[in-house]
């Protein structure tokens, strides 16, 4: 039993986490005929809080409330995992990534997120504006324009063998590679 608990505290390998995430698809379908997708929660927040007479936000969001409850669960899951199931060891990152990021100016590699970026002080700087405000905006705008995110397209869409989802997933990756290799070095030179 103790051994099992020790295993749970370690970072979970991909072959445990991936299948568990994949199982979310049939779970949601079978417990309530729901297609898996997370970015729609952002749309429901708009529809519920600031519809502003925009046709795109005029629908019965209450019927889709399960999606908001689901993301509330993800938030609680984050609290539980970080407070009660915390990894007792140091965060392990590939040596090559550490070197690349050091070259960009990142110094702190202790946690899941670089403390140099994800701190309240950064928030009120140009860095914070780009990483949180611009980044977040692109995530919200892009996922809605694409009609889904990693869960709706890459996982649910590909599970259902949808070609448009494959196209969207490839574009997600191309966007990510472009940012990482071409744009990010420029952003880091700004400060």
């Amino acid at each position: 039993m103790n051994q099992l608990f020790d295993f749970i505290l370690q970072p979970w390998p991909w072959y445990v986490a991936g299948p568990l995430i994949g199982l979310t698809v049939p779970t949601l379908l079978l417990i309530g005929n729901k297609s898996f997708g997370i970015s729609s929660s952002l749309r429901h927040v708009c529809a519920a809080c600031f519809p502003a007479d925009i046709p795109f936000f005029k629908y019965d969001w209450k019927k889709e409330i399960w999606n908001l409850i689901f993301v509330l669960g993800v938030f609680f899951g984050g609290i539980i995992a970080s407070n009660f199931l915390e990894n007792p060891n140091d965060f392990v990152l590939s040596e090559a990534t550490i070197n690349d990021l050091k070259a960009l100016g990142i110094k702190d590699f202790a946690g899941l997120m670089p403390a140099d970026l994800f701190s309240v002080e950064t928030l009120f700087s140009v860095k914070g504006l780009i990483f949180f405000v611009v980044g977040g905006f692109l995530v919200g705008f892009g996922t809605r324009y694409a009609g889904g995110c990693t869960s709706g397209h890459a996982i649910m869409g590909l599970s259902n063998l949808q070609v448009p989802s494959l196209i969207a997933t490839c574009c997600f990756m191309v966007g990510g590679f472009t940012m990482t290799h071409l744009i990010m070095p420029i952003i880091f030179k700004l400060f």
Partner: protein
Amino acid sequence: MKNIQKIQDTAVVEPFVCEAPNDMKKAESWTDNIKYLIVGILFGIVFVKAEIISWFRIQEMFRLQSFHMYGVIGSAVVVGMISVFLIKKFNIKTIAGETVDFHPKKFQKGQVYGGLLFGLGWAITGACPGPLFAQIGSGYVVVIVTLFSAVAGTWTYGLLKDKLPN
């Protein structure tokens, strides 16, 4: 009443399309919704424990320096595909006895333009929408700003929708 009528009218003009629709015919009560809270909690725990919420892991992925994220997404897709195949093949019903609905997706230019924009944002924030919620739960309070900004991005898309190529 007038309001409801208005919503129905616009619904006719603009059919509600959403990638994660609720296809359940029977209305669900608050207690029915607890199921989704539990699945969400388990999902959030997996996100944190597999370090998918980590900005560093996303960088590793886009720098092709670790197999981890490819393994996670790849095996999730394989398990999802097999599950959907089995549900269709054996016509497995939901626990309420309904036939499972699947939604074929239509190709639109937005999947390319929007996909590229989301990809750019994914690499800087280190998060897709799901991990955003788990990051905030894990105590990275600054991510609340990212989330608000993502809501603003979604809202802006809604506002400009008809002016964008799609």
